[in-house]
């Protein structure tokens, strides 16, 4: 256990980037939860996924292109750091989490553990 304040442990990196919470959708079916996180302009190598004490954290930085010889006349997409964290319920099988990146979406599949999936119990005729 450490008594050092959290903020002192990790001095914040450059604060130049705005921190935003990405638009996220969570869905559940009987086998798994699916998290769909919108990360436009983020390449795969700039996504950091960590799992600590059943907390899944997502940190990602987008790349804003600049074009040589051009001047920027409208800026609606700034350089940002996307940050989100999710407390995973006990019945998520953390070892089997899968992540995929497609069209600027990060899709996380969090399977449920076998024993919590609904299943029928046969009744033996007596």
């Amino acid at each position, binding site marked *: 256990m450490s008594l050092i304040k959290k903020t002192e442990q990790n001095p914040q990196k450059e604060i130049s980037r705005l921190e935003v919470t990405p*638009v996220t*959708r969570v*869905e559940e079916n009987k086998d798994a939860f*699916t998290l*769909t996180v*919108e*990360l*436009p*302009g*983020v*390449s795969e190598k700039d996504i950091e996924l960590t799992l600590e004490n059943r907390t899944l954290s997502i940190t990602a930085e987008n*790349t*804003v*292109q*600049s*074009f040589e*010889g*051009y*001047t*920027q*006349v*409208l*800026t*609606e*997409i700034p350089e940002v750091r996307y940050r989100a964290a999710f407390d995973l319920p006990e019945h998520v099988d953390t070892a089997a989490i899968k992540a995929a990146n497609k*069209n*600027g*979406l990060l899709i996380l599949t969090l399977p449920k553990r076998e024993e919590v999936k609904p299943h029928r119990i046969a009744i033996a005729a007596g």
Partner: protein
Amino acid sequence: MRAYLNTIGNPWRVFDELIGEFPYDLLNNAWRARTGQYPHVNVWESEQGLVVEAEAAGVDPDKLDVTVDANVLTIRGEKEQPDGTKNEFQRSFNLPFELERERIKASVKNGLLTVSIPRLATEKRTIAIEKL
């Protein structure tokens, strides 16, 4: 004192200012962007032309549509949500110059659409004035 006098000149001025400063556009755009109806863009301009970059996370590149009609560039697309509902979005830009239609290029990477629009090289013409 001057401010006070002005207020007397137009007693509603202070309200006009309040309403005028209210960021309707900003809030409206923010709301539309949040609901995915209005993509955010970055625009660059130079002698050669214009580059427009638009956010299109989660949009199938086949469902993206970039059209140019006269001097209006329109970006249109359809975003399918994980639950199957489809959201359409659209945004148009008035282009400040004549463009070279054949050389317009568009590409998608990591959910960002980049459209480059070259400026049409126009020759300057001097018109002779006839003396009557």
